[in-house]
């Protein structure tokens, strides 16, 4: 039964236009998918099943329109969301300001238990970085969010960001649920891993992807997480 999703979470992607929100999801998904399939289905709403800490969760990832003029519409998208992935472009200070704006708004308007992860995307363009990494990480910490550097182009940091978000949501939700949910620390049991791994891999053709816990842990530290 380990392969059946024990819960499903709704995640929203927020971020200014052109910061690469959609690319992040597509890249995250591509681990288990060839891009022909991905692009011919609707990439603005994707469902993925991930395995974190020995439990399996279904993620509904909702893309939002990032343009400024659609800002007023975002509450419709993030209402009853369990987590939000806020994306900025490390080469664009304005996009980070937008993220701050959103954090404030989410803290005020969205469900109080919503978990936030801030992603500095386009980490491959380190040379032209404009947003100070330490400052961004400090801001995230202050706001109770995780901070990751991601690169949709290279695929760096994506699994870690999604794994962390899932883990934190599971921890929040798991507090009220029975033992099946992941423990807050995300301690992975060898047994759980071997049980879910093959089963979930067998289901890859039917839109399943497994986020490997091993990879998530160390990278999270180096990613400047709070």
């Amino acid at each position: 039964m380990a392969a059946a999703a024990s819960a499903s979470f709704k995640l929203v992607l927020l971020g200014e236009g052109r910061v690469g929100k959609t690319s992040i999801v597509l890249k995250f998904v591509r681990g288990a998918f060839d891009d022909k399939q991905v692009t011919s289905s609707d990439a603005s709403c994707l469902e993925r099943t991930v395995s974190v800490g020995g439990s399996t969760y279904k993620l509904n990832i909702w893309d939002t329109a990032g343009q400024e003029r659609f800002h007023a519409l975002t509450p419709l998208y993030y209402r009853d969301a369990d987590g939000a992935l806020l994306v900025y472009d490390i080469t664009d200070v304005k996009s980070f300001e937008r993220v701050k704006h959103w954090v404030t708004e989410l803290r005020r308007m969205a469900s109080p238990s919503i978990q936030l992860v801030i992603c500095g995307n386009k980490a491959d363009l380190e040379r032209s970085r404009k947003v100070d990494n330490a400052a961004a990480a400090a801001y995230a910490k202050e706001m109770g969010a995780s901070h990751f550097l991601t690169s949709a182009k290279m695929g760096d940091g994506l699994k870690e960001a999604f794994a962390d978000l899932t883990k934190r949501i599971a921890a929040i939700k798991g507090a009220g649920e029975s033992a099946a949910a992941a423990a807050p620390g995300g301690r992975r049991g060898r047994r759980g891993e071997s049980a879910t791994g093959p089963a979930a891999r067998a289901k890859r053709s039917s839109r399943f992807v497994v986020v490997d816990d091993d990879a998530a842990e160390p990278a999270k530290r180096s990613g400047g997480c709070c």
Partner: protein
Amino acid sequence: MQKCHPWAKLDAAGWSQEAEAVERFVSSQLHDHVVKAAGAGRAADEAFSSRCDALCTFVGPAELHVPQAALAPRFKDTWATAQDFIHRVTAYKDPFRKLLCIDRCCRQLYRMIHTAGAVERAARMAAPAQLPDSEPAASPAGGGDAVDNAAPAAARDSPSPAEEQSGPSADDLVPCVIWCLLRSNPPRFRSHLDFITRFRPPSRVSGSLAYHLTVLQSAVQFIERCGAEELGMGPDAFEEALRAGEEAAASRQPLAKQLQSIGDAFDTPKDDAAPPRAAEAGASGARPDAAPEAAGAGPGAASAAAGAVPLPALAPLPMAHELPFSPPLSEASPSALEAWKADRYRFLRRDPASLTMAEVPQLLAEYRHMVATCASIAEALGLPPPDVAQLSPDGAAGASETPGAQ
């Protein structure tokens, strides 16, 4: 219910099917009473509808930043089909099929953006001489390694070379949905959306259905609230254009509004099993009895010209242009208009006892004319043909309050 006899032995799948069927039955029975009932919803619907009309006069795809590539002539049918799906939302009487229509509409638009983006990308990569005309869905250019500009960047100011846009996103989808909704502007659309949320609990709307419902809700909200800033216009220019648009829409409105209320008054719940009509006007006609799958198969049918539709039950109908039309009503003074009405609608306020046999043929002729008019209007608005036989003797006024009541 789950404990009662016919359902007691069902497994989970069977039970959910049963629940689906029961939901469909119950909600379709209630549909017209809920959606068409007078109330705050009606006012909001009308406000929304006239705002659409007004915005339509000066808001184009450019203002909404609809990707340029999606406006190519080859996508005309796609747009028509998407609009058709929007109209069908109002034609189906149960929330699930309404949701399916919304989903199909968004998918249609999404696929179009994807194709448009791929075409553009292919054009950029290929030699400028040869234009790609094959469906690029078969070969999405640029593999996983080569990250390139997939999304149409025409509306964007400065796509940086390193921009990673691996496919169309909500950034492009939302403007397209807004534009599509603005153009279709089906009657009472807000009420139909509300109907879905009221009769289908969120727990039973999942995945892309939920997402696309939200996209459409956000499109409605955008249309209702958008201002100068969102459309990239000066505040004065926006106010000016909106006022002009409202006036222009209002001059067309009275007829449409009158017709709408006639349609509502005559509208009674119709059997889902009504015989399917073969061809129907695409942009304005909704097919209450065709399966949603049908449209994907034949987008060409959706672009059939409006107006050339034979009505089912009323055989010899005068064409619209054959009907003796009144003098331009909008130009007449109010008192002249009243006099004109009293003359022309001479049977409207007559006591039945005062009718003479000699007047009956005239009355019948006028009745035929009215029915023909109402029917063609109802048809054009995507409503079922008026079922006047069910009206109460006290006339349409009573029936408009409680449509569908016998």
